[in-house]
């Protein structure tokens, strides 16, 4: 068991903004236009949006840690 965790690597971020578009409850952009993680352990209702953000991120700056099945 574990928890669903979101992590971002700001060094990779290119400010494309896809994450803000699909999961605004989890991601925002700072005053440089780079990713801010608002919620590293989002509730289950947002897990699908978090996975989608990770998939869409063109710089692969978002990683998801899924709980063990």
């Amino acid at each position, binding site marked *: 068991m574990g928890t669903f965790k979101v992590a971002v690597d700001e060094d990779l971020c*290119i*400010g494309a*903004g896809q994450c803000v*578009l699909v999961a605004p409850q989890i991601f925002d*952009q700072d005053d440089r*236009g*780079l990713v801010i993680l608002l919620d590293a352990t989002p509730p289950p209702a947002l897990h699908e949006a978090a996975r989608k953000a990770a998939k869409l991120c*063109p710089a692969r700056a978002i990683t998801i840690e899924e709980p063990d099945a």
Partner: protein
Amino acid sequence: MHEDFAPLPRFPFRRTDPTQPPAEYARARATRPVYPVSLWDGRRAWLLTRYDDVRAVVADPRFSGEFANPGFPAVTAARVVVDRNERAFVGMDNPRHDHYRRMFTNEFSARRMMALRPKIAAIGNRLIDDLLTMAQPADLVAHMAVPFPSLVMCDLVGSPYEDHVFIMECAAARHGLTQTPDQAERKARELAGYFLQLIERKEQAPGDDFVSRIVAEHVRTGNLSREDFAEVGAMILRAGHDTTTNMIGLGTLLLLDHPEQAAAVRDDPEVVPGAIEELLRYVSPVQFAPRRVALEDVEIAGVLIRKGEGVFALNPAANRDPAMFDDPDRLDVRRDASHHLAFGFGIHQCLGQMLARIELQVVFPLLLQRMPNLRVAASEGEIRFKDDMQIYGVHNLPVAWSWARSR
């Protein structure tokens, strides 16, 4: 592993159906998805036609996006010359790419672009006011697809709107397939020179605009030379004027060909954002991109790409991959197409994508709501498709409308 002795097909291909990608892409995807072609100069390059290969290669450090690399592939001799002289981060690998791009990311952030929505809607409404007074049929490209993104860009950048004709000429010179190298390079220099003058004007008289902010934050502080900013500015002007334009022209034609889907875009605000992603997927106007050159011998899907060979990671082909999109040749504004690659993928994914999305989310519902019974009013062959351009769309789109909406 293949070695080719027969002459390779010449790239780019001609489209047989003007609203669809060249038929060769689907054939290649089914039989030989990493597909060898010859370019204008006889050199071999590789086309990627599968979604997964495109996404993998554009983010693979064994492939470079440096325009200056002698092996970097281009579709014309003119493009080779402008690529070699490109100084904006669009033609750089990391770490230089991120260093420069990050000076501009906030200017195109999701939040900042969303805040522009009312201003963008006002520009669209003004253009429709004008259109509604015109004789029918009227050319939707000349009176909406071209001026709408141009007015938005001029407002954003702080360049005078009268200059948009010049900017469009410079964009066309780079994005065309028929220019000589001299013509293309001259227009590239002219546009960078134009932007340099704009920077100098904003240094004298700053305003609340993109150029003035970058001057204050990065030029005055010594992060960015005026000349380097001018190169990035020229890139932004070209991209901002010549991509959304093509989405509006061809996107309108496609919607009008699918009346039930057009009605949904007109009447249901919930459908609109997804419809824009689907139109982006379906049109994929930046049709010969992204491009890369192999930095070492690399095997992709069992095919050896040699060091120094070029790759076209074709986003129009990836966006029609049936492994990723069910029934990919069907336009369906209700599908989830958000993972399309029309803006590219990897570090070079479009800087202006949020602006483009909002422009398109505004313009299509507005057109359909305010121009009742909007319809194509062209005779057979009258619509000129951009077979002569690297960024695909329509040169013209004659439309008509009626005053009372019939539903």
